[in-house]
């Protein structure tokens, strides 16, 4: 691990930034957002593309420092320590999420470059201005969600995310996408308000909103007080509505399928993960005692239903983008299996389960972004995305179809994909704890995923002799970019275990897990 140490040393030592590094992923996009609005015109796109690489460097730096120090990075904002002040913290989980976000963001930003430009002769267009500024908002919101350590600051971060994600859904201004955006907004607002209600109850009980302090006070309290149980229930339900876990999923498919492809990629790959990560924070960091309860089983069952139900619906879709959106419902289900699996009565599988969950999250983020972007290239080129009329596309757009295929294989979980390694880890935990049922659900989900992808390929690879006439040909670099993202997902499983260890840095939940 010489290279990691070298990188960590570079960032921690040479720059001397230390934990100040944590400000970069949050303030870079948000300051960029303000400047993009002030300058307008052709500047927002330039600002985004200038900041994205810097964000990637900061994310790599934070991951390296966290991995090397084997401890979380903390930064007290304004110099005020909790409970009065607010802290940013990067543990292993945050580091991985920052990294995944900056990679996907960079790829999507480059992909969207030609589609959201300002045409010559015009000083500014609505879609260009809105897309790039909202993208910065999503980026800053995501990073603040991953680094926030204060429950109310996390609420503000969630709202940053909502307010930038919702308008992205209806950028094309059609009636059906406006309706999808409105439905999404109402679900998201309800989710936020339930979340705030939970924070109010926790503050009333413990007088602090800092996750670390709350965990200590909860552990000291012994049995969970009613306010804590109510808060956990309210916050979880609110965040589930934002994550679109069955049965709160209705808003997702039309919203994700109706957005422009670049926005769909961000929404499906990253935005829904933010609320999921907060659920993980609540259950693993804040109240590890919950994990020993049957409540974890409920989340697991909902996840299992989502896997089967989302997969079955994806199989029946007539349009490619809707298929990809329904596939997101199913793939989100996998993430929720980590809750029952981490309750392993045998002992400490939490580390492996979380690593598996994060791998699944990262693999899905890259694969799903690639699938939406590839579907976008196909739809733009053909002028439609009806699966039944894809004949000949394999010949007309071989690279796009290849990228879609590789992303699909990565999603199914063939070796050596990240999803394969994730499912191996989760399956191992299921076997070890005798919860074989969850393993079975994962197998069924894999079969369904394979089935709906085969259906797409059946059409796309038929009619080789008569390729369809294309409206426009996608830029070669866009196709290669999508292929690269798909390959990222496929190659995630090749990461050496030493790098995977970053996920568990800063986990103290093991100690709390022993509570009755």
């Amino acid at each position: 691990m010489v290279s990691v140490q070298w990188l960590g040393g570079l960032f921690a030592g040479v720059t001397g930034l230390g934990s100040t590094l944590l400000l970069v992923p949050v303030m870079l996009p948000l300051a960029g957002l303000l400047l993009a609005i002030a300058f307008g015109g052709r500047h927002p796109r330039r600002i985004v593309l200038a900041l994205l690489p810097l964000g990637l460097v900061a994310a790599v730096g934070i991951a390296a420092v966290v991995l090397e120090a084997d401890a979380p990075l903390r930064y007290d904002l304004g110099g005020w320590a909790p409970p009065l002040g607010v802290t940013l913290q990067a543990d292993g989980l945050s580091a991985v999420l920052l990294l995944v976000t900056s990679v996907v963001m960079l790829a999507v930003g480059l992909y969207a470059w030609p589609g959201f430009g300002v045409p010559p002769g015009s000083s500014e267009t609505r879609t260009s201005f809105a897309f790039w500024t909202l993208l910065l908002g999503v980026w800053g919101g995501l990073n603040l969600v991953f680094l926030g350590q204060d429950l109310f600051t996390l609420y503000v971060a969630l709202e940053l995310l909502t307010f930038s994600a919702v308008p992205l859904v209806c950028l094309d201004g059609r009636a059906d996408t406006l309706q999808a955006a409105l439905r999404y907004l109402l679900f998201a607002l309800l989710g936020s308000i339930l979340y705030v209600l939970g924070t109010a109850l926790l503050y009333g009980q413990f007088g602090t909103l800092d996750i670390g302090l709350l965990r200590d006070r909860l552990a000291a309290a012994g049995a969970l007080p009613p306010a804590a149980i109510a808060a956990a229930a309210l916050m979880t339900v609110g965040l589930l509505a934002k994550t679109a876990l069955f049965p709160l999923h209705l808003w997702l498919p039309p919203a994700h399928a109706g957005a422009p492809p670049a926005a769909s990629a961000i929404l499906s790959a990253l935005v829904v993960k933010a609320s999921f990560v907060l659920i993980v924070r609540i259950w693993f960091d804040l109240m590890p005692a919950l994990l020993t309860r049957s409540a974890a089983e409920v989340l697991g069952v909902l996840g299992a239903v989502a896997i089967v139900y989302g997969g079955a619906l994806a199989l029946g879709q007539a349009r490619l983008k809707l298929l990809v959106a329904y596939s997101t419902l199913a793939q989100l289900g996998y993430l929720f299996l980590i809750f029952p699996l981490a309750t392993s009565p045998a002992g400490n599988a939490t580390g492996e389960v979380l690593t598996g969950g994060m791998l699944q999250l990262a693999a899905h983020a890259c694969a799903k972004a690639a699938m939406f972007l590839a579907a976008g290239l196909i739809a733009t080129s053909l002028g439609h995305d009806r699966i039944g009329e894809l004949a000949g596309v394999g010949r007309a757009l071989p690279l796009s179809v290849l990228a879609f295929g590789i992303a699909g294989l990565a999603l199914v979980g063939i070796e050596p994909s990240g999803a394969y390694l994730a499912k191996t880890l989760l399956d191992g935990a299921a076997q070890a704890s005798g919860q074989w049922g969850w393993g079975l659900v994962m197998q069924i989900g894999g079969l369904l995923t394979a089935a709906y992808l085969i259906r797409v390929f059946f059409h796309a690879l038929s009619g080789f002799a008569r390729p369809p006439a294309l409206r426009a040909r996608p830029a070669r670099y866009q196709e290669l970019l999508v292929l690269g993202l798909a390959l990222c997902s496929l190659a995630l499983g090749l990461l050496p275990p030493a790098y995977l260890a970053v996920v568990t840095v800063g986990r103290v939940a093991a100690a709390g897990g022993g509570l009755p």
Partner: protein
Amino acid sequence: MSDATLFGLCGAALVGLGLYGLICHPGALRKLLAFNLVGSGVFLLFGAVARRGAASGFGGDPVPQALVITGLVVAFAATALAVALVVRLAQAAGRTDLDPEPPARSEATPERPS
């Protein structure tokens, strides 16, 4: 029963009332009104928590009071965005319900960005 407890219970009832409106009204604007009721109920509950924490010569714990002010501003921004969406949807589709089937009427669609 103190005034804090009374208004805390009042907040709880408002949350219930608002949730009922959110579920039972098909129109988006009515849902938005209901959402605002839920929001004010939550903030009122937070206010009760603040009142209970009165100490050091302050009439209430200033931290939750400050959080409520932040929350009110965010709720207003949310309402403004949602109202604009509702009005646009009404212009484009002639209706403001959220039934999953696509709206009946559709205006001339602007060019889609790729």
